[in-house]
């Protein structure tokens, strides 16, 4: 009896301590936001607070990580999340209202009614789309003793279609008279996941439709060749397999040789500058309306200094947001991504090509036009 009466106060005390501990935790959690309010009053330069959850194209993931870090550094009370669920998933989530903004490798059109659905989601106003991520896709190869390789579009298409099977074939030898091409079989490596394939096949189908007869497809249509998953998978396969050729993000090419691709009469290396130029020479897409900076890339351009095999990714957002906090965040974040600073950050961390000044200005004006509240 004695012992229990002793124990009870102890338990009570323990419960009290626990309870105090819990409330203390709660208070600690509240603290940053109240401090943030104070901060805004003091005018620290950033009035933004809250969480922004976007997502979409996985191609942007590395760049988005750089942008998130940069944006959060400038706005310490903001958390930005980017879920790389894929372009299709990003558009789906944007339309259903799950994401306030989305990243997508292809623009919205009405083939499956996505543009109309997105317009409805934005309260009857057409969504805005701005290019934010441009990255050259390099054709990488592993050939002993061949330091530079120049490929015409037809030769490139022939290799990946399986028509050109030997490295010393006439279509390749013609453009590389000085290279010591081996009489070995070509091992073309392609992506076994869907990302990037649409882009590359679109290029092949446009520039060499007689050779690449499969059109623009998401899933690799040729039975031959080697499949590898992800950019790193393709780069690894080309690295490990002599006489291999593949396509991958130029920033990931590493020590591998990158082929110069025939444009007009000359050949272009996959440099960021040359890649960024493609948007300048490309016409706006048919689906483009007010606020939609979308392009049908002009792969057949003959302009010197333009590298045509490019991945372009867009940001999709609404032109106006009813929720003030959400709208402010989207506007500020998108503005940062498009800005010179943001583009430089992505170029440094993800190896993308900074937007050309004229495009960046137009994009900035579009983002500035977002109305809030």
């Amino acid at each position, binding site marked *: 009896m004695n012992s229990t009466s002793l124990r009870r106060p102890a338990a009570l005390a323990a419960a009290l301590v626990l309870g105090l501990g819990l409330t203390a935790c709660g208070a600690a959690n509240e603290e940053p936001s109240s401090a943030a309010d104070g901060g805004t009053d003091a005018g620290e330069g950033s009035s933004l607070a809250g969480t922004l959850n976007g997502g979409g194209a996985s191609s942007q993931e590395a760049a988005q990580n750089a942008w998130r870090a940069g944006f959060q550094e400038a706005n310490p009370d903001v958390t930005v999340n980017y879920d790389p669920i894929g372009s299709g998933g990003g558009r789906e989530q944007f339309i259903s209202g799950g994401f306030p903004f989305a990243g997508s490798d292809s623009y919205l059109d009405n083939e499956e009614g996505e543009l109309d659905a997105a317009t409805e989601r934005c309260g009857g106003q057409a969504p805005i789309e701005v290019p934010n991520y441009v990255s050259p896709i390099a054709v990488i190869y592993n050939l002993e003793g061949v330091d530079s390789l120049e490929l015409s579009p037809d030769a490139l298409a022939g290799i990946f279609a399986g028509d050109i099977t030997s490295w010393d074939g006439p279509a390749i030898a013609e453009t590389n008279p000085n290279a010591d091409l081996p009489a070995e079989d070509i091992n073309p490596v392609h992506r*076994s996941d869907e990302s990037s394939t649409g882009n590359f096949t679109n290029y092949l189908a446009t520039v060499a439709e007689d050779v690449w007869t499969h059109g623009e497809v*998401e899933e*690799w249509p040729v039975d*031959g060749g*080697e499949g590898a998953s992800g950019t790193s998978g393709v780069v690894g*396969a080309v690295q490990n397999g002599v006489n291999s050729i593949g396509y991958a993000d130029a920033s990931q090419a590493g020590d591998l040789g990158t082929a110069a691709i025939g444009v007009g009469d000359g050949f272009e290396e996959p440099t960021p500058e040359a890649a960024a130029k493609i948007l300048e020479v490309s016409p706006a897409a048919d689906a483009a309306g007010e606020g939609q900076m979308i392009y049908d890339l002009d792969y057949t351009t003959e302009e010197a200094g333009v590298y045509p095999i490019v991945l372009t990714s867009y940001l999709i957002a609404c032109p106006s947001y009813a929720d003030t906090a959400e709208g402010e965040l989207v506007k500020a974040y998108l503005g940062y991504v498009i800005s010179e600073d943001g583009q430089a950050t992505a170029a440094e961390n993800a190896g993308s090509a900074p937007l050309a000044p004229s495009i960046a200005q137009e994009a900035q004006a579009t983002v500035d036009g977002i109305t809030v509240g």
Partner: protein
Amino acid sequence: MAVTEAAPRPVQRRGDVLFAGLARAAAVTILLALAGVAIFLTLEGAPAVTAPASARGGEDDIVLYVWPLPFGTLLAAVLAMLIATPLAFGVALVISHYAPRRTSRTIGYLIDLLAAVPSVVYSLWGIGYLGTRISGLYVWLEDNLGFLPFFAGPASTTGRTILTAGVVLAVMALPIIIAITREIFAQTPTLHQEAALALGATRWEMIRMTVLPCSRSGMVSASMLGLGRALGETMAVAMVLSATGVVSFNLISTSNPSTIAANIALQFGEASGLKVNVLIFSGLVLFVITFGVSLLGRAIAARGVKGDSR
């Protein structure tokens, strides 16, 4: 009547009731989980049957799209089993009957360690080490055994073929099979073994006459568990295999059938809308296959037990 009433009722205490209830609840939970998965796969997979061709990689019929996948799944698993089972039984026999006790214990620990290695690590090993080294063997196979359809070539220079995937899967299935079979071999009645030896049997004859017959059903069960791992393995195949969606028995070329699990992992990232349903439908096919395989395994194991007891 009176007699039956007089029979003492079995004593039941609270613990019995509680334990029986808990055990039943566990059993029901498993069944519910299984049923839940089956229902989900069927409901979500059903729209794939009528989906437009664009969601199925351009194939007109869901069967045409899906069928190379079970083919690849089974081919890779069969290759893995062909390599893993003899090797595993051999290792297990060494551990239980041949090696001195201390050595066998060390080998046992090492084998168990193999099971703890994550599949991603195995796939990195498959790509970076095994693939590049085994490609020389493939060239040799093509040159010397090229008349066989399995080795028709052209040999892959990166070694990322279905045979490599089979080897990686075999290494992953090994520890499971070994761990179970070595315990089963050790369960062989000592009297039988000593009797066989006393009658003048050599060690190999003793193993053939006493250990193997006693363990047959256990060996089948162990293989089935290993096979389950090989069928369902995702990451290793997705990374190691150069999958191009063909149906071919050519084991050493760069064009290989994909497996169901690897295909889902590779395509899910960029899939949306009906494509997801198509992928889930292929998941349903895998579910049915694994179910069928384990039923088959059960049947074989059960037959083995009957044969022994008579």
